[in-house]
């Protein structure tokens, strides 16, 4: 993880410091992102009590289509976009009153959000920081979650989702830009049925780092 982070810095810093300044794009755009995500240890509750699920870091892929507002727009400088994301994390361990048990299976989250980002353009530079938020829905699925080989849950739930994001755009050309960003993604608590047991609710709190390309039209 640390090595990857250093590589990203090594690639990006020269661009940030030495790049050529391009005019800010306005109009429609599309983009794709790839990244890593870390799902926070989830607090779960059912009629038997409280337990915890810990997940491994996983991958994140997303695609966006949106509209860049032109610089000087009275509504503000920024963009609005529709984002589809797919996050996946493998269940690593579960902790019950009896102790920690090895666990398996995947938890996936497919989300559709409308994002609003404010972009802070600067004179004579190609990079622009941005920050914003998004609202939408997510379908979160427990795919064959097991605890010590015993089945826990295989179910899905549709929940309200939201996202906070920030990052840096780097304009490679007038139409093409590189985006390095951080996303905090969360949802209302999804409820999943358990095998031969009660249903449980769990937290979903996710941190992601993404790298993407956006193309303007």
């Amino acid at each position, binding site marked *: 993880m640390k090595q990857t982070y250093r590589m990203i810095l090594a690639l990006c810093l020269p661009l940030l410091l030495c790049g050529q300044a391009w005019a800010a794009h306005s109009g429609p755009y599309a983009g794709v992102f790839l990244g890593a995500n870390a799902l926070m240890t989830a607090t*779960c509750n059912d009629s038997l*009590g409280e337990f915890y699920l810990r997940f491994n870091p996983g991958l994140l892929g997303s695609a966006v289509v949106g509209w860049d507002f032109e610089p000087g727009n009275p509504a503000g400088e920024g963009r609005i976009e529709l984002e589809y994301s797919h996050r996946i994390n493998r269940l690593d361990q*579960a*902790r019950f*009153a009896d102790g920690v048990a090895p666990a398996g299976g995947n938890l996936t989250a497919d989300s559709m959000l409308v994002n609003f980002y404010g972009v802070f353009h600067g004179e004579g530079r190609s990079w622009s920081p941005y920050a914003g938020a998004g609202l939408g829905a997510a379908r979160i699925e427990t795919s064959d979650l097991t605890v010590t*080989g015993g089945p826990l849950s295989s179910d899905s739930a549709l929940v309200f989702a939201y996202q906070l994001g920030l990052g840096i755009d780097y304009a490679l050309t007038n139409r093409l830009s590189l985006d390095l960003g951080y996303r905090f993604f969360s949802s209302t608590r999804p409820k999943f049925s358990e095998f031969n047991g009660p249903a449980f609710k769990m937290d979903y709190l996710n941190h992601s*780092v993404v790298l993407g390309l956006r193309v303007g039209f």
Partner: protein
Amino acid sequence: MRNLLWSGLVMAVLLSGCGWSGSASRPNTITPLTSITISAAYSTIAQGTSVKLTATGNYSGLFTRDISDQVVWTSNATTVANFVIAASPSRVTGLTPGSAVLTATMGGMSANFNMTVSSATATSVTVTPANPSIALGLTQQFTATGAFSDGTTQDLTFDATWTSSNTTVATVSNAAGDNNGGLASTPSNAVSGTTTITATFGAVNGAGGVSGSSVLTVTAPVLQSIAVTTPNTSATTPNPSVLSLSTVTFTATGTYSGGTTNDITNQVTWTSSNTNVAPNPDSTGVTQTTTQGTTNITASLGTVVSNTTTLNVNGGNLASFPVLTNMTVVNGTSVPISVTGNFGNGIARDITGALKWTIANPTFANVTTVSTNRLLIRGLAPGTTTITATSPGSAGQISTAFLTVTNPGLSTFTVSPPPSTGLALTAGTSGRLTATAYFSDGTNQDVTANVTWGSNATAVATVGTAGPTGERITGVATGTTTITAAFGNLILTNPVPVSVSTRTLRSFTIIPSGTVSVVAGNQTLFTVTATYNDGTTVDITSDVAWATGDGNVAILPDPQNQPGQVVGVSSGTTNLTASFNGQTSTVTLKVP
């Protein structure tokens, strides 16, 4: 550099989600059960006895759990040993001598336990503990141990029949269940004394068998807990708020074994954690606060210590009070004294009753307390002495003045309002009369408190007690009467006429009304004006019954002699209510 900071922040947030937190409460019912083991106190039991088996489940090597009540118990030789006790499904009983394999089955897993039933017979039973003593309301678990003909011993607590020789002292349980037999307890109406607890094994139809016994002594109830309360504490407000220089009365209630309670205020040792705020309460539970702050009050008796009650003292620290001026009082009469304390930040209130008053030579005069803040100095004999006022606390302020008791001759006395004016009252309300005496040395003095007042028709108007503004005359019913007055050897020549009218009350209101802000520690005066159907308005401030909803927020320090006077105590909101003639009027008090 800024980008590096952003990256560091992101990494820190990422790492924050990696640890366990909280405490899990849900049992793991998902990990598969992989094996069962059975254990018991004995693998050989005597015929007619029983033993409880314990089944322990091993879950994939991760943890174990007692599953005795979840497994299915079976025996391959049910005539030798079998599970026949419904109240204790895991307890096996030896029925006839021989061997049996006992099995526990659950979730496709099973385990066996080899049990032998011997033909040994009980030769003695020992009951332990021997001759214990308990207090009324408590319990004692007895154990019966049997010695058998083959030299073995076995716990017979479950299998024995338990009896008590004196059930008015204690009873002993034979209820089914693993932890019920041999449990001695005292009934709710039990008395102190002794009883013999006997365990009998092997009796047939109540006869025969082998017995053992122990004498149980039941003593008087013992104190188990102490609860400390004040008039302003409740379940939702366990820690009261009061003003500085105020008196607080704590009550200690003891709860004894058996559930009885008793007021033990004068038996406990009282402790205040911060004696600068309030000294240790005395044997009656009373303490007087000195400065702002908090102190924890506890009561203890023997080894039992009460809950901690935090006393919150507000209302400022006394900065000063006026220097006493020299006073003169005529022998045989009384004059009121009043002191207002300055607490800084504009906070001032009457502290007359909070001060300690001392007469250097008590043969000349004394000080009597009429109500919280109404004190009277009474001349007892001619002469000069000093009077000293001291504020509470280790650093109390002191003021001293000369007090002279004179003995002039009484020339005359007058009342106000004079007989020529009289009093006009509405039934149910009151008016005031004052009296002034004139002496041979040219002095005069308010002697309202010393005059003997009387009504010639108490069905029309009655005479009350002297307050700070005069003698209280209350109208009872329509009519006229006269009020007489006598002082010394003089009688008022012309009694004061009083006319009483009966009117129908339309409404009355507290002034100021609505929501009133009251500063903690400061006095705010409220008045009440009644409006009658004929349009008459009457000040009934002294005639209503005053009350505040929460004494932790605001109090009426002296409703008898300072009616309508409210002092804020601590932040909050409460009601001030005036009740009169079956009606109430309310304003909201808000203490910032």
